[in-house]
């Protein structure tokens, strides 16, 4: 199996994702320049965090027009896995591969800190090694992580079990005071209906080493590997 990490101009977590896959999980991984279109020999593509194209218009709004995104639509259609982290999540929303939108954090400031998220759905390629309602300690770092979707859309997400992660406290309690950015229903990660595209705001690649005080992020990467290698 092979991972691909997309590099948009302005991506800045591409090297961190690459490092975790290659040096910690010892799996094959390659960088994919945003202008490349040959991506069929990959099993999972990571859209990393950062400020693609400076995010000057709106987070992810320009990146969705990159040549590689056209290939990603086909890739998703074929049922292969795509995970968008932070800016990657924002790009997936702009591209219409996930539903909803991001608005600025409620406090109108960039927020970088460790948060807790609760795994709401373990029946996905990205969370199959997590326990139901398991609490993960993973940091966030974003300006626009205030996820929004209209009432109908939210009902749809709930109905189809598309909400994968919610912000919570250490014990797993989901409440407004543990919502760092104002996201609707404390949502920090969702999948598409088909279940092969995940977007999440927290950075699992930043919590994949003991020295960095949490290895909970590894569960997500390991789930992906487990799903692909065992053809779940």
């Amino acid at each position, binding site marked *: 199996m092979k991972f691909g990490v997309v590099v948009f101009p302005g991506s*800045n977590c591409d090297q*961190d994702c690459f490092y975790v896959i290659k040096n910690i999980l010892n799996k094959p991984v390659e960088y994919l320049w945003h202008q490349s279109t040959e991506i069929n020999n990959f099993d999972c593509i990571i859209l990393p965090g950062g*400020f693609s194209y400076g995010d000057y218009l709106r987070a992810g709004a320009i990146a969705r027009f990159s040549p590689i995104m056209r290939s990603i639509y086909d890739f998703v259609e074929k049922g292969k896995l795509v995970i968008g982290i932070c800016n990657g999540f924002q790009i997936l929303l702009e591209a219409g591969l996930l539903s909803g939108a991001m608005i600025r954090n409620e406090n109108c400031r*960039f927020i*970088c800190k460790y948060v807790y998220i609760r795994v709401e759905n373990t029946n996905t390629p990205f969370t199959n090694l997590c326990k139901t309602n398991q609490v993960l300690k993973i940091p966030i770092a974003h300006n626009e992580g205030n996820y929004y979707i209209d009432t109908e859309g939210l009902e749809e997400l709930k109905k189809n079990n598309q909400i994968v992660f919610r912000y919570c406290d250490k014990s797993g309690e989901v409440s407004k005071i543990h919502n760092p950015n104002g996201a609707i229903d404390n949502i920090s990660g969702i999948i598409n209906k088909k279940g092969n595209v995940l977007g999440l705001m927290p950075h699992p690649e930043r919590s994949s080493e003991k020295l960095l005080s949490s290895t909970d992020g590894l569960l997500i990467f390991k789930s992906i590997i487990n799903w692909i290698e065992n053809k779940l």
Partner: protein
Amino acid sequence: MIKPHIYKSLGLATPQYKKILEILKREPTPTELAIFSVEWSEHCGYCSSKKLLKLLPKKGKAKTLIGEDAGGVVIDKNLAIVFKMESHNHPSQVEPHQGAATGVGGIIRDIFTCGARPIALLDSLRFGPINKAYNRYIFKGVVDGIQFYGNCVGVPTVGGEIYFEKCYSGNCLVNVMCIGVVDPEKVVRAKAEGVGNSLIYAGASTGRDGIGGCSVLASCEFKEKDEKRPTVQIGDPFMEKCLIEATLEALETGDIVGIKDMGAAGLTCSISEMVATGDVGAQIELERVPLRQKNLEPWEIMMSESQERMLMCVKEGKEKKIKKIFQKWGLNAEVIGKITNTKFIDIKYKNQTVAKIPAKSLVNAPLYNRKAEKPKYLKILRSLNLKKISKIKNYNKILLTLLGSENICSKKWVYEQYDHMVQTNTVILPGSDAAVLKLKGTNKAIAATTDCNSRYCFVNPYRGAQIAVAEAARNLVCSGAEPLAVTDCLNFGNPNNPTVFWEFKNCIKGIASACKYFNLAVVSGNVSFYNESPKGRVYPTPIIGMIGVIYDVGKATSHYFKKEDDVIILLGVCKNELGASEYLSKIYKVFSGDAPSLDLALEKAVQKTTLESISRSLVSSAHDCSEGGLAVALAECCIFDKENMIGAIIYGLDFNIREDALLFGETQSRIIISCPKNSVEHIRKIAQKNNAPFKVIGKTGGKNLIIYKKNKVLLDVSLEKLHNRWYNSLEEKII
């Protein structure tokens, strides 16, 4: 005939102008006059400071690399750390957001221009009193500019310090330090060589922004109603991110002979310094410079301080290959000139010569001998009659007030706005004594800190500067790092004022003596004069940035208590010292008394003991005592980790001094260690061997911080109360 008011408006004095006539043997063209004015400005030419800066040691215990833009230390066969600190005070005072943002951008370029990948940023900030709306506007704007630029460019902001003091009203300080990693074999110099090689301009196009930034803005003080906004540059962190990747990729080819970023004085500075360093000449065709707008005059192209631009000397025949890399990243790359053997910088614009200057003359600005005079007020300022300080006895309340002081309280409102984790190296997060970053591919880590107490430097420049060095080293040691080398950013008032120059001279002497004592090289630095406004000048503020190495990253240590029933040890002694303290300032609104005493031998003994104890894995936490004294330091140990606060009972403080000095005095060379019981005797022995004063003063546990003196409870406060005050104060003061 060029009239005096013309060259004076560019910041040149008459003797300097006469010197230009002498060099050129004719009257300068407008472009030449502009070029001399920026290259000979205080900011670029170090006219007042160069002679004194020679006092700083260039060698120390670590193998050093000293380059044109930044310096560094070699810490492994294939690994060197390059670092530098620089000021962007004046632009930030004029336009806080862009001023601070471009300060970040500028120092990052100084690092990757050596071929190093930038891995961390630290910010040392000073503002006027927080209760004034205008100061809060500047403060928020600066923080916003730093987060805007640093977060986007993908370099974590891992540390720094912030102080609020009246002297910075009207002239804030924004000093940014950047750290990079590089293979020592691959360090690139800012040097142009090889006749026939090309000069390639890369990055953003040139506009009218920042013209005269360094000569006009950075080299004179603020006066009332000055409109200086157009001299501030505008930053584009996305462009810089692409520029970092493109430059590092291009340097990998080995076809770049030399490279320099365009910072202060833009194209002028990079051309003249690269050419002069290589002892060659250059022929430039200015019309080839990519422009943001039409109709820029030649002198404007030369003077512009547009951001995110680099100048490279590229091997003849390899131009296309290098240009292609920059174009891949969506950046301009144009050949704008050739290296010649004339030793003249010959600048043409549309086939007309607009400047022809001997390269060396530009980088050897005339130096001044400034007058230095010890101010008379110091004698009165330093005298503090402790008997006259009425003894307020409610120590619980005083501790809470100090923990809530904007100079002491948690800065999480600030650092949570900075991405401090990107690049996944940050082992010790902001808020501890020093930031710790692991070095991928090794088992080592580096620790970094910035320090300076400018009150101490105002009452006693020599000792204050020594303390800044000692404290920086102490902070690194508390993280488990051996201090290796220093960068400094020297912020002072107008050097024409003999008092200012006396302060400057003594601070440099203080830094030099302390660095020599600890065997630390000063590998890079920056001088910022003219930090004055109609409200007065800033206190002498020589910020020390220091780097240390942790040989085993697993031994990185943080400052807060880890578990109950640990023993608390004090290394060092408590003296009857309250001069220039935060306690006097906040509780009695008094600023007087001399800076705390400093005994370098004692300092070294305490640091050695701590470092040895950490490296033998005997220690749970280590924290230095600084502003607010022992009581504040102990409180910080108790409450830092919100999810796991641990109280303490302190019963072993048998120092025979005033109670307030014991609790809140800022005596130097003290470190608080917590450790498991079975470590105590080992640490005692290490302390004895090093001649460091050692005392078991208490133990961890409980939900309160309780401090006894003999049998009397001096202070007893719940952790909840301490935490709330310390954690929320900054936010409460600025909203």
